[in-house]
Each structure stands twice: as structure tokens, then as C-alpha cells.
């Protein structure tokens, strides 16, 4: 790392820019301004800077700010460090004006990048004062080179050299001595003095060098006296821009200053006079003033014409808005203290950005507006709801809906009322299901404002279809979506979105076959398109459906494909895809792959900001243990907070923690717990049926069968098992049955005649389960799961102490289990027990 730490005007940036010109390798120049103190904004510019200097564009650098919405800061840092480690060519990252950063997250990132000493990344920090790093350590371990004020200040000899470059100025030896002494080697001041002196002597108001000082305002006004007033005024106006180009200068001057010269002329003259301007991009189109000079020019303008400043900022904001530079447009609107304008910029550009599915950009814009301003603006609140839906931010979702309700929509236009009703309908469909109210709200929304965009109108149709499905009006729901197909081109996003709605309706109905058929159409339509969001979702659906059919390879491939769209589609679904991969590997009894996907889930759960993901991960982990006969280990997790049920957690997800808790309790709980679990299962079933959600019903029926079986209520167990098998047969839902045979094979002995069930006879499940070697216990010997596990361990040759350690129980408990087993099997000892089991 190289640190250049010195006050403004010591030529730090110039020095670095000249130095890197002579060096080989790529240079990523990150010129900071106030707005970049925001982490998300910093990440965008950092990503861009690293990408523009590199010969190869990396997705990872483009996606950083989007991932920042979901991932913890440590996870983001890790991603950046890993990506930087892969840089193939020597890259210098120059962070200019680092003193503007006060955000601890950014400091942490930069310090990690320095400490990691990444082979192909050199960091150069330019700052007016020392950054808050552990500099002592960096010095001690020689990880840092410093260039400070003492190194940068001009000595007399250097001043003479500088002077020699320009013949228009001549100073005597004494005068040079005075300049160097007065300025104390401060380069900016030396240059300003020389500039002031460079004008023809007769006009020069500086009579003697002894009158000058280090006061920049004074120096600048000396200089201005020698410039044309119009030209100086234009300089002041340009200084209001963080950076400017010819077009922007023209636009500002046309607006504010009649009779000014063209931007091109102005820029040429600034360059010719070397009036402290710097290029801010490599193409040479954009410039800024040296910061101190810029600040002095603005200060000067505030004195002479304070009223114009706000209107110029507003004008600059509009100029950027027209060019679709929305971040800049918002920043200047905020500088003009015109939040209304900032909000209107967001609303104006909202549709185009959402059309590209880049809701995270929208989120970044919204974050710039203070909360209290947002809270008073219906349009902005409605935009925020869109982001909540994408990020599944349920807390904000309901509070914003309440907020809008309390403001009231009486004075709003039809479109806004319609949008509000849409979001309310969405909330009542997916978050707190109340399909009747949802349909009402959505139908009202449609009646109030007609829209056919993929983003609003067609999306609304999908949601209304889902809520109609929840009311049991599936045929109507599908019909209305089919009507939409007719209206759109096959290649349009709206057309695809309407199929997306159909898949959702089918999945919620538990109608997997039809879901599969419509999904195939989506997959055909999105291939080779850039509808990334729909691609991500459709891969997930594909995996989800194949998972239920237990089409192992298809499910694995589809889920893996879905994982390629990290951050693009909903993270809850993304996480569920990982759950699918883990569970399918476990059902395939591929322990190694299961462990590796589980590990991946665990890693992601740590990285994600939302703590709920840790529970989602925990649930899959428990379900894997349930598969391998170690479900009793999970009983304490499963019995904590397990009765409370949220209907919105179910939807069409592969693993729902609430349901997995019931899985564990039903298989490993006490009798009292099982009884309670069955009651809860009945409640869940009732809730799901009340909204016609058929996605989990086979699992629930099987769980009830297991529960009754363990309670020795065989009749009821048979009834539910048969119910489950009939449904599974109808839909070819192999997975739920397979999972049940794996964890409770003895249950299936209740079926005396498997022949009516294709699922048992044709899929080989029957053979695989009822005569599985290594699952010694069957219902007839009446061993509990724990006891079966013990027998398995004894069969492996483990001693009591080893078993106790492995299962985290005392040797006393092992012995008492054994006594029970002996009496159930009517054997006197271990050896007879094993012999009996083998028989």
C-alpha cells in the first residue's frame, strides 16, 4: 500500500497520475465524492473501477451492491477479496480523496484489502489526513510506503524549475525566495501566485510579490481581476458540478448566463491557462476543478450571487435525469434541498429500471431520501412496497401499508390508488393470506386503472389468479391468465409472466402435472432471452417439481441452474433450491454430497443478514438427521416454539421449518407430544385447505399416519396412509412416500395388499423398504426408533460406553434400553438379540 497523506494542494493526485503513466499494469482510479460514503454506492464505483481497468468483465464486481442487500458485510468483503485474488494482471487501485470516507464498513473493507496483500492488487490511498487504519502495524511490517507533506512540498530549486517551464513569468532570485518562504512549499499557492503574475504587467494588480499571502480567496480574486468577468462567472457555475463536460457546461450557461461562451471554448481556455482542472475519466470527457479551488469558487459565488445556486443545482439535476443518470440527478436534487424533485426523479425512472428487474438500484435511490420525507410521499411509499415484495421484507411491508392507510389516498390519482390496492392484494395473498379480501382489493385495482405492462398489469393478473385459486376458483384463475396470453407477443416478458402465474396456481393447487406442462412452455420461452429473473424462477420451479416426482437428475440439474441466479430472484426461493439439492442427495443416500450442500447452506445462512435463514438451514439439517435415523437428536429444536403456525410460511416451499418440526415430533416425541402434533397437523391442514393449498397435503397425511401408528392407533394410521398413497399415486408424487419409507419403514407393513398402489409396486419402493437390510426392527418386534438405533450400533460392534458417547446419553440409559429390548425380543443377551434380529 502506498499512502499519500498531505493537505489539499500539495499535488498528490497529480503525482500519482504521472507516476502510474510510467508504470505497466492496469489502473483503477476511484475518485471519491460525498455520496460514496454510502456503502452500496461505494461498492458500485469500486466494482466499476475494477472492471473498467481489467481486460475481462467480472459479474462478481457488477453484482456487489445488489448482494449487499442480503449478505452480511463480512461476506461481501470475502467476495471482494476472492475476486481480487483472481485478478490476472497487476492492478493498482487508487482511492483518491479517501478522507471523505467516514463509514466504518468501507474502512474495514479497505483495511482488509491492504492486510491481505493480494498479489496483483496494489492499493494507493490519497487523503488529506491519515485514514483510521492500524498504521503502526503496517509500518512495522513494512506493508506501507508513506508520502507525506514533507516529501511533497516544493523546495526553492523545484520552484525555479517550475518557473523555467513558463517564459511569461520572470521573477528575481529574491522574489523566488519570498514566494517559497511565504507559501512554505505549498504547490497550489505557488502556482496561483505564478498565475497571477503571468498576466501582462500593466494590468496586473499585484504590484509586488510581498503583498501576497496564502489566502486562497485573496489569490483567486487577484486572478479573477485578470480574467474576463464572464469567463470567471462561468468558472464559478461549473464549480457547482462535482464534474462537468462540454454538454453540461453549455446547458448550465444557456440556462443561467446569457452571452456566455460555448463549453468547448471555455474548457479549451481553462486547459490553456492551466486553471486547476483535472480530467476525471480516461476518455477525457469529464473534468473537475481542484477541490480547494472549486470550493473557493463556490464560496465566492455564494458571496456575489447566493440566490442562483439552488436553481442551478435543480437544473443540473434535471440535466442528469434527462441523460438517465438517475443517481446524479437525485444527488443534485438533494443538494438543491429539493426532495420533491428527488422523489419525482425516482418515480420517473422507476418503470425503466424495474423493467430490467433491477429493483436493487431502486432501493439504492430510495435509501438516499430521508425516512420522514419518504413517509409523506405516497408515490415513494408505493415504490418501496415493490422493493419489499422482491426482498420479502415482511416487516417493512406491513408498516408501509399502514403508513399509506394513515395518510389516506383521498387526494391521489386513480393509478396510485390502484397500485396501493395491488400491493394490499399481494400482501393478503402471500403474506397474511385472506384470499377473499385479496380478490376484492385486486379486482378493484384492475377496475380503477388499466395497465398491461409486465411489471404491473400482468403481475397483478398473476396475483389475482393466485388469490382466486386460494378461494377455490382455479378454473377462473387459469382462464383469466389464458386470456392474457392472447394479448401479447410470444417473445414478450408479459407473455412469459402470464405462464409464470399459471405455474404458481398449479403448484399451490398441488397440481404438479399441469405445473410441469406450463413450466415447459416457460423454459422454452426464456431460453436465449435476457429475462434473468424469470430464468432463475423457472429453474427453481423445475427443480421443485422434479423433486416431488423424485426425478433425481432433473431436479439436481435444475436446482444447480437456479443457483446461478444468486441475488437475481428471491432469496427465500434460492435458499429453498439449496434445500432441495441437500434433501435429494440425502434421499439418494449420497452422504458426501448431502454434507457438502448442507455446508453450503450453512455458509449462506451465516452470510445473509436476515436471521430467519439460520432457522431455514437448521430445519434442513434436522430433516437430514431425520432421514438417517438420528431425528431424536433434533427433538429439543423441534419442540421449541413448534405449535405456532404461519400459513404464509408454507406456499410451495420444499422445506418449511414449521412442518419439519412436526416431522421430528411425530417420529420421536413422547405420546403426549405426538397427540399434540396431530392436533397441530390438523390445524395446518385446515388452514391450507381453507386457502386450497395442496402443495404439502401428502406430506401432512403421511405425518398423521406416522403419528397414529406410533400411538398404536392402527386403523386411523391405515386410513391416512391410504389417503396419502392414493393422492401420491394420482400425482406421481414419489418423494413424500419415499421419505416416509426411509424414516419409518415399518409403517408400510400396515398395507396388506400393495397392488392397488402403483407407487408401491412400480417404483420399487415396496421392495426397497420392507426388506431393507440394515433396518432390523419391524413393527412386529415393537422396538422404538431409539431402540432400533441402539440395535444397529450394537450390530456394528460398538460397546455400551461407545454407544453412550455417540448418542450423548449415560451408560445407565444404554443399559436400561437394552433391558427393554431384551424383554421385547424375549432374548437373554446381546448375542441372542443379534441372532434374532438377523433372522
Amino acid at each position, binding site marked *: 500500500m502506498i499512502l499519500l497523506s498531505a493537505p489539499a494542494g500539495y499535488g498528490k493526485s497529480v503525482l500519482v497520475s504521472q507516476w502510474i503513466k510510467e508504470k505497466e499494469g492496469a489502473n483503477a482510479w476511484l475518485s471519491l465524492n460525498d455520496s460514496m460514503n454510502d456503502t452500496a454506492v461505494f461498492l458500485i464505483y469500486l466494482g466499476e473501477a475494477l472492471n473498467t481497468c481489467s481486460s475481462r468483465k467480472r459479474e462478481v464486481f457488477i453484482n456487489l451492491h445488489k448482494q449487499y442487500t442480503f449478505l452480511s458485510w463480512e461476506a461481501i468483503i470475502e467476495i471482494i477479496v476472492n475476486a481480487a485474488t483472481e485478478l490476472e494482471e497487476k492492478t493498482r487501485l487508487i482511492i483518491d480523496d479517501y478522507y471523505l470516507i467516514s463509514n466504518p464498513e468501507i474502512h474495514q473493507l479497505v483495511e482488509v484489502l491492504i492486510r491481505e496483500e493480494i498479489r496483483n492488487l496494489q492499493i494507493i490511498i490519497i487523503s488529506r*489526513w491519515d485514514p*483510521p487504519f492500524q498504521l*503502526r502495524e503496517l509500518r512495522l511490517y513494512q506493508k506501507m510506503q*508513506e508520502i507525506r*507533506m514533507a516529501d511533497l512540498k516544493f523546495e526553492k530549486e523545484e520552484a525555479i524549475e517550475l518557473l523555467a517551464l513558463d517564459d511569461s513569468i520572470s521573477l528575481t532570485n529574491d522574489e523566488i525566495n519570498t514566494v517559497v518562504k511565504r507559501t*512554505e512549499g505549498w504547490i497550489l499557492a505557488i502556482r496561483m501566485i505564478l498565475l497571477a503574475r503571468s498576466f501582462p504587467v500593466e494590468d496586473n494588480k499585484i504590484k509586488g510579490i510581498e503583498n501576497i499571502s496564502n489566502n486562497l480567496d485573496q489569490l483567486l480574486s487577484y486572478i479573477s481581476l485578470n480574467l474576463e468577468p464572464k469567463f470567471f462567472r462561468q468558472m464559478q457555475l461549473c464549480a457547482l458540478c462535482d464534474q462537468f463536460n462540454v454538454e453540461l457546461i453549455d446547458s448550465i450557461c444557456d440556462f443561467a448566463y446569457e452571452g456566455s461562451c460555448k463549453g468547448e471554448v471555455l474548457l479549451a481556455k481553462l486547459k490553456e491557462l492551466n486553471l486547476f482542472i483535472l480530467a476525471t475519466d480516461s476518455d477525457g470527457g469529464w473534468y473537475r476543478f481542484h477541490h480547494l479551488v472549486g470550493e473557493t469558487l463556490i464560496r465566492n459565488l455564494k458571496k456575489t450571487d447566493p440566490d442562483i445556486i439552488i436553481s442551478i443545482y435543480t437544473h443540473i439535476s434535471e440535466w442528469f435525469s434527462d441523460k438517465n443518470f438517475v443517481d446524479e440527478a437525485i444527488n443534485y436534487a438533494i443538494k438543491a434541498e429539493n426532495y420533491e424533485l428527488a422523489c419525482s426523479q425516482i418515480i420517473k425512472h422507476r418503470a425503466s429500471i424495474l423493467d430490467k428487474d433491477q429493483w436493487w438500484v431502486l432501493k439504492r435511490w430510495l435509501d438516499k431520501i430521508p425516512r420522514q420525507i419518504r413517509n409523506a410521499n405516497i408515490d415513494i411509499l408505493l415504490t418501496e412496497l415493490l422493493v419489499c415484495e422482491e426482498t420479502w421484507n415482511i416487516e417493512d411491508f406491513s408498516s408501509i401499508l399502514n403508513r399509506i392507510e394513515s395518510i389516506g389516498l383521498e387526494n391521489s390519482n386513480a393509478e396510485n390508488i390502484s397500485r396501493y390496492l395491488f400491493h394490499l392484494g399481494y400482501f393478503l395473498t402471500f403474506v397474511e393470506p385472506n384470499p377473499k379480501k385479496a380478490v376484492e382489493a385486486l379486482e378493484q385495482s384492475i377496475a380503477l386503472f388499466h395497465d398491461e405492462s409486465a411489471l404491473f398489469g400482468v403481475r397483478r393478473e398473476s396475483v389475482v389468479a393466485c388469490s382466486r385459486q386460494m378461494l377455490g376458483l382455479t378454473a377462473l384463475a387459469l382462464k383469466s391468465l389464458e386470456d392474457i396470453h392472447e394479448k401479447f407477443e410470444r417473445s414478450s416478458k408479459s407473455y412469459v409472466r402470464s405462464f409464470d402465474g399459471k405455474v404458481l396456481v398449479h403448484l399451490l393447487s398441488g397440481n404438479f402435472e399441469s405445473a410441469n406442462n406450463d413450466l415447459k412452455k416457460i423454459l422454452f420461452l426464456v431460453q436465449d432471452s435476457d429475462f434473468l429473473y424469470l430464468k432463475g424462477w423457472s429453474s427453481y420451479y423445475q427443480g421443485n417439481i422434479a423433486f416431488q416426482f423424485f426425478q433425481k437428475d432433473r431436479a439436481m440439474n435444475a436446482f444447480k441452474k437456479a443457483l446461478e441466479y444468486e441475488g437475481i430472484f428471491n432469496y427465500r426461493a434460492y435458499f429453498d433450491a439449496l434445500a432441495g439439492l441437500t434433501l435429494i442427495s440425502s434421499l439418494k443416500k449420497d452422504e458426501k454430497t448431502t454434507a457438502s450442500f448442507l455446508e453450503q447452506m450453512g455458509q449462506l445462512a451465516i452470510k445473509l443478514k436476515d436471521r430467519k435463514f439460520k432457522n431455514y438451514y437448521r430445519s434442513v439439517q434436522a430433516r437430514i438427521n431425520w432421514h438417517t435415523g438420528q431425528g431424536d437428536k433434533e427433538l429439543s429444536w423441534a419442540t421449541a416454539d413448534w405449535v405456532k403456525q404461519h400459513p404464509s410460511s408454507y406456499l410451495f416451499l420444499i422445506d418449511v421449518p414449521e412442518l419439519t418440526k412436526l416431522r421430528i415430533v411425530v417420529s420421536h416425541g413422547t405420546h403426549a407430544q405426538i397427540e399434540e402434533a396431530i392436533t397441530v397437523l390438523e390445524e395446518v391442514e385446515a388452514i391450507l385447505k381453507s386457502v386450497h393449498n395442496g402443495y404439502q397435503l401428502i406430506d401432512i397425511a403421511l405425518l398423521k399416519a406416522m403419528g397414529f401408528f406410533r400411538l398404536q392407533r392402527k386403523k386411523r394410521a391405515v386410513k391416512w396412509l391410504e389417503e396419502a398413497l392414493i393422492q401420491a399415486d394420482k400425482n406421481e408424487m414419489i418423494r413424500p412416500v419415499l421419505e416416509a419409507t426411509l424414516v419409518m419403514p415399518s409403517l408400510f407393513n400396515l398395507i396388506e395388499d400393495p397392488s392397488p398402489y402403483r407407487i408401491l409396486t412400480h417404483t420399487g419402493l415396496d421392495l426397497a423398504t420392507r426388506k431393507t437390510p440394515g433396518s432390523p426392527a419391524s413393527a412386529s418386534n415393537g422396538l422404538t426408533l431409539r431402540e432400533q438405533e441402539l440395535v444397529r450400533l450394537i450390530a456394528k460392534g460398538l460397546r455400551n460406553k461407545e454407544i453412550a458417547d455417540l448418542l450423548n446419553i449415560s451408560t445407565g440409559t444404554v443399559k436400561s434400553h437394552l433391558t427393554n429390548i431384551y424383554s421385547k425380543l424375549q432374548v437373554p443377551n446381546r448375542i441372542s438379540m443379534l441372532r434374532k434380529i438377523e433372522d
Partner: protein
Amino acid sequence: MLTSSALAGAIYQIRVTGELNTTLLNAVDDMQLRQENGQNSIALVGWLPDQSALLGLLYRLNEIRYEILSVEIFAPNESTLMT
């Protein structure tokens, strides 16, 4: 007029209000800390290369909300006082 301390470095003493804690320890890099007897104040003493370094430190102290009571420069030959 810049003094030699601005360019060649000097030993500084910065007094702030408050108690010692790890946040402060992490912020002050290689300054030595001393809780002042019977007072709710801490003296930070150490060598800094120039005023950009001093400024960096003062900003850090401000960011972690330690009120700055005084900043003093000790001439190099007085450094023995600090041991």
C-alpha cells in the same frame, strides 16, 4: 508560518474526556494512553509524523465521540518527559 513540527513530526499530547476502552485503544494506533489521576480524562501521548497524521487521529477520536480537551506539541528535546 509552518513550524518544524508540521513537517518533520513531533511528540503530541492530546487530552480527551472519558474512560479507557478497546474502541479507544483500536482508534489511537501507536499513541500511549494514560488515565489521568482522579479525573474523567485520558492523555494520549506519542510521536506523529505531521499534522495530516494528527488530523487523522483527531477525526477518529471525534468519530468515536471522545471530546477533545487540548492538543499540545512537545518539542523533541522534551520527549524525555514522556517516559
